[in-house]
């Protein structure tokens, strides 16, 4: 049987299923818009009325309508990852090089933990306002004691110290479990950080990378010869943030995302000093927004062509510096920028893939 047929079946079956339940979703949204609220939906998604108010019924329905296409895209993406994992173009980094990449990742955390703690301490003063996002409120219903948070930061530091200072090897149990503990510490700290009705994307690629770092270390322990696969997933955790962000732009705004009006909206939301000069040049806003979209949508090429990491890293650097200089969002010290280092296809490589890989 052709190996692509199961992918096709899963894709089409999911599409049909979503198509069949679509009307139910559309009806629920319409009822909510007419004030006939569904308590279950409110519980799952309490900020939905605000969303309805800001986006309007038509756009919300359009969004629901898109889900089946998003599904197809995801299946296609998974198919792409699967078929290109064993690409002959993928050079395999050697063990030492991979270990240093892990150490570097924990070194990056050391840079940002003090700042995260500073932010959390500030929020501690305003803890009376603590209103975690709906899902998070089940995990952290009240603002935790500042002592607990201090301990968590110290533990997170200790995890970093372990990876940087100790002579660990990937075949041991300890590194993977310690990384998992560190990931949980970061999770709690970020949940507190998000505890004022919003998601903050400052640490998005770092946290996403951390998810895959834990998987990588567990996989590496089980298959010591195949640490490079986990590393590729870790990289996917970083470039995936850009790729899916680009997809969202296409799905939610489509071609309208690339327009002077949208650039004006962004400038209105985030007035930076370079906004006016850029808006005064014809077609420059469109050009810049197109470049952003192209950069984000092409990041997935790194899976097939590792040298694309240079393009993503340089593109990402320019992107983050631009959002800082033009829109005053983020900064030169953004953790996103440091995480780009891991996309560079540098480090010593083994000549061929280790045995056991096809």
């Amino acid at each position, binding site marked *: 049987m052709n190996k692509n047929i199961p992918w096709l079946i899963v894709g089409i079956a999911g599409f049909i299923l979503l198509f069949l339940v679509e009307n139910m979703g559309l009806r629920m949204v319409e009822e909510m818009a007419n004030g006939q609220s569904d308590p279950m939906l409110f519980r799952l998604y309490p900020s939905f009325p605000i969303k309805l108010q800001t986006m309007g019924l038509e756009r919300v329905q359009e969004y629901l309508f898109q889900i089946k296409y998003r599904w197809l895209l*995801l299946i296609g993406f998974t198919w792409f990852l*699967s078929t290109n994992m064993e690409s002959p173009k993928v050079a395999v980094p050697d063990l030492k090089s991979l270990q240093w990449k892990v150490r570097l990742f924990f070194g990056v955390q050391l840079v940002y933990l003090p700042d995260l703690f500073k*932010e959390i301490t500030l929020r501690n003063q305003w803890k009376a306002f603590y209103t975690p996002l709906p899902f998070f409120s089940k995990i952290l219903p009240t603002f935790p004691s500042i002592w607990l948070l201090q301990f968590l930061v110290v533990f997170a530091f200790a995890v970093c110290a372990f990876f940087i200072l100790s002579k660990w090897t990937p075949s041991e149990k300890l590194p993977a479990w310690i990384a998992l503990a560190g990931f949980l510490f970061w999770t709690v700290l970020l949940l507190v950080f998000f505890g004022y009705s*919003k998601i903050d994307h400052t640490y998005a690629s770092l946290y996403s990378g951390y*998810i895959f770092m834990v998987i990588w270390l567990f996989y590496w322990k089980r298959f010591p010869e195949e640490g490079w696969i986990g590393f590729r997933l870790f990289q996917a955790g970083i470039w*995936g943030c850009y790729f899916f962000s680009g997809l969202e732009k296409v799905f939610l705004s489509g071609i309208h995302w690339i327009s002077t009006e949208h650039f004006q909206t962004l400038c209105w939301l985030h007035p930076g000093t370079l906004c006016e000069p850029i808006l005064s040049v014809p077609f420059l806003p469109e050009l810049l927004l197109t470049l952003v979209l192209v950069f984000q949508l092409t990041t997935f090429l790194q899976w097939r062509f590792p040298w694309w990491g240079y393009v993503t890293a340089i593109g990402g650097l320019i992107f983050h510096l631009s959002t800082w200089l033009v829109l005053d969002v983020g900064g030169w010290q953004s953790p996103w920028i440091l995480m780009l280092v891991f996309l560079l296809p540098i480090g010593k490589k083994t000549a061929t893939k280790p045995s056991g890989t096809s």
Partner: protein
Amino acid sequence: MVMKKYLYLFVPLVFGIPFLLLADLFPLHRYGMFSGLARPEIVFSQYSIHIHLAGKWQKLEAENEYLDKNYFPMEAMRAFGDKESENKLVSKIRASLRVKPDSIRLESDSASASTTYRIIFPQK
């Protein structure tokens, strides 16, 4: 080989679930990256909280970009005109400040609001 197949699924799982279901879930997202033209004018930016301290009125600020520019205005908008919410807001503000303010008021530049400011503490 089976393990590897599971790993392939991991990337779509981590990113895919939000992509499928939850994207743009948070209307107060600061950067507006996802929204494009879908984002209308943020009405709550027209609202603010002011406190009377040491003989003069000043805007309530936490010296944090998000809290100052988004969260406090949003709280002001939500509480404006609703007695119960206003009382809750007063308690939160007073619990957060070391030096307690003499008065607290909400201001609105919104054309739709019937009054431009409301003294919510002390209660009349």
